[in-house]
C-alpha cells in the first residue's frame, strides 16, 4: 500500500496535481511514514524528475509552476509533521535570490527559488526590482552561502555586476557564491563580472548551486 501511495504522491507532484499531492501526503503520514522520508524519498526525487523533463523539452514553464504548487501543497502537511517530530531536514545551504534593480521580471527567478527549495535549500526570495543594498543586507543577515541574481534586460544585467561589487565592498564576497541567470546573460557575462556560475534554467540552477557548495 505504501509503495503505491509513494508512487501516487510522486506522480501528483510531477503532474502538478496539488489536491492529490496533499491528500496522499496526509495518507502517508497517517500510515506512519516518517515525514523526512516523504521529503527525501518521494518529493525531492519527484521534483528532480520534473527538472529533467524540463531539460529534455517535455516540460515547460506551466509544468514547473504546477509541480511547484503540488510540492508546496504536500509540504503544507509534511512541514508541520517534521516540526512536531523535531526532525530537521539537513539543508545543503541558504540562498538569497532576487531580480536586480530596475527589472520586474519575476517568473524565471521564482522557478529557480521553487526548485532550490524543493532540493532542500533554505531560500530567501527578495522578489523583483531588488536594490543592491537589500541584497547585501539579506546576505549579511542570513549568512547565505549563495546569492542568485536574475536579469532579463540588457540594461539591467549590469546591475548583477553592481551587486557583486557591493558584496566585495561589504567584505562578504569570500563567504558567498554568486550565481546569475536571465535571458540576455551567459557564462561569458558571468565570468566577466566575477560571478561564480551561470545557469540557463531552474533545473540547471539546482545542479550548479549543489556543485558550488560541494553538495550532492
Amino acid at each position, binding site marked *: 500500500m505504501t509503495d503505491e501511495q509513494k508512487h501516487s504522491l510522486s506522480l501528483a507532484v510531477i503532474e502538478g496535481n496539488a489536491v492529490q499531492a496533499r491528500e496522499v501526503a496526509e495518507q502517508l503520514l497517517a500510515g506512519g511514514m516518517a515525514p523526512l522520508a516523504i521529503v527525501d524519498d518521494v518529493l525531492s526525487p519527484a521534483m528532480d524528475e520534473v527538472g529533467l523533463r524540463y531539460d529534455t*523539452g517535455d*516540460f*515547460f*514553464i*506551466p*509544468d514547473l*509552476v*504546477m509541480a511547484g504548487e503540488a510540492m508546496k501543497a504536500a509540504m503544507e502537511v509534511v512541514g508541520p509533521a517534521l516540526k512536531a517530530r523535531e526532525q530537521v531536514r539537513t539543508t545543503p545551504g541558504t540562498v538569497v535570490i532576487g531580480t536586480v*534593480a*530596475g*527589472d*520586474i*521580471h*519575476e*517568473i524565471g527567478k521564482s522557478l529557480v527559488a521553487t526548485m532550490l527549495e524543493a532540493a532542500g535549500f533554505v531560500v530567501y526570495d527578495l522578489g523583483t*526590482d531588488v536594490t543592491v543594498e537589500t541584497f547585501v543586507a539579506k546576505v549579511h543577515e542570513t549568512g547565505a552561502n549563495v546569492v542568485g541574481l536574475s536579469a532579463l*534586460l*540588457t*540594461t*539591467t*544585467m*549590469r*546591475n548583477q555586476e553592481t551587486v557583486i561589487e557591493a558584496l566585495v565592498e561589504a567584505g562578504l564576497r569570500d563567504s558567498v557564491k554568486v550565481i546569475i541567470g536571465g*535571458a*540576455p546573460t*551567459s557564462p*561569458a*557575462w558571468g565570468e*566577466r563580472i566575477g560571478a561564480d556560475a551561470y545557469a540557463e534554467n531552474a533545473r540547471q540552477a539546482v545542479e550548479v548551486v549543489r556543485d558550488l557548495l560541494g553538495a550532492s
Partner: protein
Amino acid sequence: MDIVTRLREGPVLVADGAMGTMLQDLDIPPGTPGEVLVMQQPEAILSVHRTYVEAGAGLILSCSFGGTRTRLAHAGLGDQVAEVNRRAVALAREAAAGHAYVAGDIGPMGELLAPLGARTYDEAIDIFAEQASALAEAGVDVLYVETMASLDEARAAVEGARQAAPDLPLTVTLSFDTKGRTNMGVRPEQAAQALLDLGVTAIGANCGNTLEMTEAAVRKMHDVAPQALLIIKPNAGLPQMVEDEIVYDATPADMAALARRLVDEVGVRIVGGCCGSTPAHIAAIAQAVS
C-alpha cells in the same frame, strides 16, 4: 492604401527595429520602461522612431509594449493608461509623417494567468481592452500584439482588442525561445491554428532566442497555414560583450539574408527586428526585400 490591402497585395512591409536597446545610451536608470520616456523624454522616443523611418521602415510600432495597466503600475503610471498610450501613438505618428503605417504595440501584461497565477482570464481581457481602446482612439492603423508566450494570454489580448476596436486590423506574434516553442510550451503550429481560428489579420514570431529558432517557427506556421499572412521580427541574435558594450551578434547582413529567404520561400509579409536590432539592420532588410 489601408494596411490589410497592402499586406495582401502590396510589396513586403518592412517594420522597425528595437526601441528598448536603442535607448541604452540615454542617461536614465537601468530598466526604465519606454513608456516612462514617452512621458518624460518624448524627444528621445521620437528620434528613434525617425531613424527607423529614415532607414526604410514602413511600419512603426508605438512605444507602448508595456502600456497595460499591470505593467504601467510598476512605474507608478497604472492610472494613466489612456494618456501614455495616446502619447506613444502620437510620437509614432509624428515620426511616420505619412510615410509609414503606425501599429499600436501591445506586449504581455507581465503576470501569469490562472491557474498558474492569480490573474483571471476575464481580468486579462479587460486589461488588454483598456490599452487597445486607448491605442485605437489615438488612431493606429493596426493593433499589434507581440512577444506572447502563453496562448491563453494571446487569446485574451485578441478578445480585448476586439472588444475595444472590432474593426481594426489585428496581428499577433509570439516569442519562440525554448526548444522551438514559447517558454510556456506553445508550438508554432498550435499558435497558428488557434490564432487563425480567431480571425486575426496576420500572425508570426518576434523576439525569440536565435535567428534560426525564430525562422524555424515561422516556417512551421507556414507549413500548417500556407494562406496566413506572416510576420517575422526577430532579435538580432544573442547579446555578447564586445569591449564594454553589449551587442547582439546578428549583423545587418545576417538579418537581411533571413528576410530575403523568408519572403521568397514562405511569402512573409512583414519583416523587422526586435531586441538588439538597429536602423542599420532595418536598412539592410529594406534593401534586401525591395
